[in-house]
């Protein structure tokens, strides 16, 4: 290994490129040889060579970085592999420990469920609302679309997340200062308190499932409707730790919004116009015509959103990394995977978590595809 890390990487990259070129030619020649044996025409032989030659980087990478690692991790998930030591077969111990004994893992499952049940509907509604606004095709739509999409580009950069950390400071953070200022007007004040009440009850309930006891839940219920000077305690208590993540999800709804925009664009104008002639108002037109026709897009966003919720990592790392009391209340599955594996290099256990996450994602997708027939409208009526 050379001293200079940049030079070292440049050399490795050069070797990688050479390897890929050799592998491409190798795979191409191999494929052409097989094609010749199969008695293909000259032209067919040469296009076989070209096809495998150009696709080789992916094929080789698939074997090296997907197939082999997955097979290895399946094996390791049944061992107690921990990095300098050799793996020893332990049967299903990792899985039983994970699913039956590990409270932090169960916690991260409940947190993910929370984000899916509470956060995802909010995120999808926000995306749909923004898409409907943009779809009115007013002048300046481009600029607004740009502004709505910006958080997707910035959203998961640690720098921007740190800015949210600053803004969400419970005492002097700008978000709470604005909430305080707005709460001076009685209707908004009541709204704020009602939201706080609902959020804390729901969160206390989920934390109750998490801990297996509901003392906190009872305490929240007992303390009743929040006092007039209350503000959200964003990054202060387990009751609010997940809400900050949901806020970030809603803020970054730009990709979902673009997908809804595409869906709304595909709604035939004639249908809208015909309904308008029949005297249907905009509200009715949206729910009776546009909404059923964009259910496939809602479905797509639902699957993608659920899978994304399992994988949330950066916000939790930046907001809660060294806050030992708060962090477990916000762990996502992937954050837990990272923590459990790399704290003590527990490869065996981490492999088991990876496989559980993988199977979970496949299951979600499968169930979603099963259920979609009930409510997704793929055709015009």
């Amino acid at each position, binding site marked *: 290994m050379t001293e200079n890390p940049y030079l070292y*990487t440049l050399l490795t*990259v050069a070797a*990688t490129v050479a390897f890929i070129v050799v592998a491409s030619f190798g795979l191409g020649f191999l*494929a052409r040889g097989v094609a010749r044996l199969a008695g293909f025409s000259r032209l067919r032989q040469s*296009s*076989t060579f*070209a*096809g*495998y030659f*150009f*696709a080789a*980087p*992916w094929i080789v*990478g698939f074997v*090296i*970085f*997907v197939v*082999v*690692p*997955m097979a*290895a*991790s399946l094996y390791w998930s049944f061992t107690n592999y921990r*990095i300098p030591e050799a793996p020893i077969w332990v049967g299903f111990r990792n899985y039983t420990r994970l699913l039956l004994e590990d409270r932090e893992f169960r916690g991260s499952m409940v947190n993910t469920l929370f984000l899916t049940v509470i956060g995802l509907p909010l995120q999808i509604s926000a995306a749909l609302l923004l898409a409907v*606004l943009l779809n009115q095709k007013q002048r300046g739509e481009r*600029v*607004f*679309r*740009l*502004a*709505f*999409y910006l*958080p997707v*580009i910035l959203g*998961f*950069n*640690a*720098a*921007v997340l*740190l*800015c949210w950390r*600053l803004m969400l400071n419970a*005492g*002097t953070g700008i978000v709470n200062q604005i909430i305080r200022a707005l709460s001076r007007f009685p209707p908004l004040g009541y709204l704020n308190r009602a939201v706080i009440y609902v959020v804390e009850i729901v969160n206390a309930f989920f934390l109750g499932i998490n801990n297996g006891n509901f003392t906190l839940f009872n305490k929240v219920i007992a303390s009743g409707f929040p006092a007039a000077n209350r503000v959200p305690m964003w990054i202060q208590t387990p009751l609010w730790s997940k809400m900050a993540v949901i806020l970030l999800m809603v803020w970054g709804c730009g990709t979902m919004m*673009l997908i809804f925009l595409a869906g709304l664009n595909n709604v035939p104008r004639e249908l809208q116009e015909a309904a308008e002639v029949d005297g249907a108002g905009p509200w009715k037109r949206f729910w009776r015509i546009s909404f059923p026709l964009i259910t496939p897009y809602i479905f797509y966003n639902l699957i*993608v959103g659920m899978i994304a919720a*399992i994988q949330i990592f*950066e916000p939790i*790392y930046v907001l809660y990394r060294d*806050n030992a009391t708060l962090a477990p209340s916000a762990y996502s599955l*992937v954050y837990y*995977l*990272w923590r459990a*594996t790399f704290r003590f290099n527990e*490869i065996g256990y*981490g492999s088991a*978590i*990876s*496989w559980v*996450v993988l199977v979970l*994602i496949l299951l979600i997708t499968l169930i979603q595809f099963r259920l979609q027939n009930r409510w997704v409208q793929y055709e015009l009526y």
Partner: protein
Amino acid sequence: MSRMVGQIAVKAVLYVLMTAASIVMAFPLFWMISTSLKSLQEANAPKIIWIPTQLLLDAYRQVLADPRFLRSYLNSTFYAALALAGTLLSIAAVAYAFSRIRWPGRNLVFFLMLSTMMIPAQALIVPQYVFFHRLGWIGSFNPLIVPGYFAGGAAMIFLLRQAMAQIPIEMDESAFVDGASHLQIWWYLVLPSVKAPLATVATFLFVGFWNNLLGPLIYTQSSDLYTLPVFVAQLYNINNPTQPWPTIMAAAVLTTVPLVIVFFFAQRFILESVVITGLKG
């Protein structure tokens, strides 16, 4: 007449709503810049200070004088540039194979590629870590860069393939008659006609590399190799009695600048391609 008034009112409400949403969306960016120009007292003040009374550049001076920050900036640039070059090129090659060449097994390989989109990258972190550990690559940039050279990113291959498939195949055929090879057609004919999708893919890849936190966290190990997200995340430390917010935000602004620049140059490509293919970056 009343109908026109109603239309104007609807329009006004629409604009108010969209403007409000835009302000909310862009607000963190504004607040980041505003805080980076404040004094420490102003940044922690218990009242709202939208724009600091005096625009102070001290925080920027402090950040730019920090060799660790400059080092992580260099690291991020090095990593993003090198990874981008190889990933983009290999993705373009594979997309060409899937769209412009007929070869036995193409549909099977294409189906396999699409199905890898279901595998979350994180499920592969653990075994890949072991693999790189055995290669002796932990504590270097290699694990961050090399996998991309094997056309990493099925969604991006798909996006480019869709774009390439739309070019009439006659273009290739007439070039073949003139004696051109696949490599020449790929480089001189096909790639120039998918410039906009290439720009989109390049943007998504760049943003992904620039924002990547988990990878550098696992693989870089020593602080000499920290990329910007890892370094910036560590500026905030819960154990500090007071957080040096102006300094942190100055570092954050400097980290975000490349993203904003790239976004504003590439936005007209991105917004369209995402709508066409329905894919996420």
